[in-house]
């Protein structure tokens, strides 16, 4: 839980060991830590997706997936989330060039795209609940809300992280030499996107 924020809070460059100059692997400590954390996250989502798979088609009462899914709507919000990976890359490229204005533009764009995805998810959840599917209804409800909710929390933390970075940049505390902070935040963001591709494919697109 702590890690997204510790991305914001990079160990400072004055940390004697922090920056990529003499590490054995050539990766900075922060980047290596983020990769390790993402490895751990793989198992987290892997276990959740497995639980979802175990209960596919096992619900004893409706409504189930085909009753509630609105594939076109979710496709659009998935597209929105995937586009945010592009803006994230543009943000990184901007800070590497020292273009702080564009950095903030793209950071804010990424955060807004992420927030739109979350808004879409909130809309989707409320629609499902209105149609009679809650976490208590059946196995599908339990596993659907927990899995997508977990992903939603990850995106939300990512948005908070991006807004914090935007704020830092605005106050001039995110110089060009800290481009790696953006890169590491981007690693997290892209990971969350990739996980969504997996979730979208296996729980929305593959029929039961």
């Amino acid at each position: 839980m702590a890690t997204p924020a510790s991305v914001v809070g990079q160990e400072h460059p004055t940390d004697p060991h922090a920056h990529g100059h003499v590490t054995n692997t050539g990766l900075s400590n922060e980047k290596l830590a983020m990769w390790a954390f993402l490895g751990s996250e793989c198992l987290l989502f892997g276990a959740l997706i497995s639980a979802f798979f175990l209960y596919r088609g096992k619900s004893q009462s409706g409504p189930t997936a085909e009753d509630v899914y609105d594939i076109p709507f979710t496709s659009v919000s998935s597209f929105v989330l995937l586009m945010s990976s592009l803006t994230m890359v543009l943000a990184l490229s901007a800070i590497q060039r020292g273009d702080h204005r564009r950095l903030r533009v793209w950071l804010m764009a990424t955060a807004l795209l992420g927030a739109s995805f979350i808004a879409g998810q909130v809309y989707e959840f409320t629609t499902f609940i209105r149609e009679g599917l809650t976490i208590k209804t059946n196995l599908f409800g339990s596993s659907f809300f927990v899995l997508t909710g977990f992903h939603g929390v990850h995106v939300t933390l990512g948005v908070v992280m991006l807004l914090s970075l935007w704020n830092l940049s605005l106050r001039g505390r995110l110089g060009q030499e800290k481009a790696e902070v953006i890169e590491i935040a981007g690693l997290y963001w892209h990971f969350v996107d990739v996980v969504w591709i997996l979730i979208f494919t296996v729980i929305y697109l593959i029929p039961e």
Partner: protein
Amino acid sequence: MTTVLEPIITPEQSPVADEPGLLRRPVNPKGVWSWMTSVDHKRVGVLYGVTAFVFFLIGGMEALLIRLQLAKPNGTILSAEAYNQLFTMHGTTMVFLVIMPMSAAFFNYLVPLQIGARDVAFPRLNAFSYWLFLFGGIFIYSSFFLGGAPNGGWFGYAPNTSITFSPGHNIDFWVFGLQLLGIASTVGAINLIVTMLNMRAPGMTLMRMPLFTWMTLVSSFLILFAMPVITVALFLLMFDRNFGSHFFDPVFGGDPLLWQHLFWLFGHPEVYILILPAMGMVSEILPVFARKPLFGYPVIVFSGIAIGFMGWGVWVHHMFSTGLGPVATSAFSISTMFIAVPTGVKIFNWIATIWRGSIKFTTAMLFAMGFIAMFTIGGLSGVTHSISPHDRQQTDTYYVVAHFHYVLFGGALFGIMGGIYYWWPKFFGNLLNERLGKWNFWTWLVGFNLTFAPMHIIGLQGMPRRVYTYDESLGVAALNMASTVGSFVIAGSVLIFMYNVWYSQKKRRVVAGNDPWDGRTLEWTIPSPTPHYNFAEIPTVTSVDDFWHKKYEEDDKGRMVRRASTEMAVAETRTGVDEAPVDDAHVSEVHAEEDHDRDGHDDGHGIHLPSPSYFPILAALSLPVMSYGMLYGSDGGQNYLIAVLGGIILFAALYGWGMEPSAEPEEPEPPARDERAPALVGGPSDAAALGSGGDDRAATSDATDAPSGQGSS
């Protein structure tokens, strides 16, 4: 350059004026505060060790109560409910609050020393791990005063632990408490992995790392990948209990096996998380006291890695009696037999290490040899479990209890005790008394075997575990009495150990010096106790057992002869180090001063160490607040105000953490370390200096022109 040259923290220095966040940086804290805000890996390690030992005493008392209840048939000391709580808490405590953090104590203290680093990669994250472990432990134990402790076993099988069968908050404390401990372990593992992969001294290639460090690396990876699995299991259980989902609810088609799969997919790697560090310690102790190199170093490394991989493929042997069908059962039977191979390889390597060595039977060595013998017995009874028909006969009997105590107590705790005796001088500067140590060892060995060996037979006779009493007609009364007597012998042994600690610290202090055991690894090249900055100069390593080879060599006939005194060998680790950042004049200064420099945060030598911080402990404190909020929030109408409050504290703490530099500079904006941004540096000369020699400000001397450039920013 000036900022680099200044001693970093002085009493007069005030925190940077425009530092954002809630709390000013602690400046030169004293006493308790200095421990609470410390980010020094050695202090964190000591805190881990002391806390884990306290939990060990608590878990041990729980075990004694269990044994008293079982001493005679139809015991009446404990009620069934109290018994359930005690065996659950005994298991949970010993696994999560004793062996794991006790290993973490050694990880934290020793890994940076063994790889020649000045701290771990993320010192504040390290402190955070410790505080979260402490608060998580207190959180679970607070259940005793808040309506009853967890009572569903350390494995917490759902749906027995679901709200239907376990109303009340007992299980909630377990669920949230383990989540907290899981976060603490994962964060710690990431920190250690980065430290070991990134911060090794020059020449310290992976295949030159000491075995203890290697086993730390393997078990850190296991923690990294195993913890999220139990995190998911616990989350699903939490949603079932607090939010009405149906993951483990058979009424709605939920599958109880899901819990078992998730739990044991975590649980079996966990077994290796518990034992690998002890294997590492034993692999350090044996060669030192046999005065021979470790037999087959690469083989031991690779068998450790093999155990790490194969540990993921055997979890179903915990579930043979659940009826998974012949194919799954056969496959996991075979994989379980296979995992005995790398373990057996290690055992033979250890035996070959002491074979024909000139053995010194110190207490540490006795514990290490006790480890080999006891762990082998536990390993063999483990192999009997891989035979599925046999396993189905023994499932849920005391035979299983005997088995895992032989590996966890006979294995992990023997190794840890050996490690304590071996590294105590490095931690505290004085040796533990050997005479008392031998009493400690022999009572420990006898008490352990008296307690757990009879359980093999008790189990084979059919006495089920987790049941609070038994009838005389079962015919195991005498063996149970023997077992209870044995448990009190162990308790006596623990008292001897505590007396030894008191005696050796207060009564008769024997100062150890750098290298009391004629050691082989880097931690013995530095003073005892370790100075704040660990290494005055970062050493250069040329081989496995580098320090040993600087002390000894073989003559023409293959005999071992001294080639240099310990002092000369220590000096040799410091020579020829281009990266060694401290200049010569400064080195002598360091040596002159290092004696009266043990307990301040001011390293005093311009070696730039991370500064203390309030934020790790604050962030760690917010998580139990959230947990209490979640736990009681579901009681009356889903009111999660306290949980939200905890979340706000967490956010604020992490934000303050993020804004606070790891090590306090003199000026708000530290000079950029990156050549691309010279504009931030005060003057051109500074930029040049930074670009070349100044890249490790960790070590730049404070000898000269400190005041000249104060204003540059």
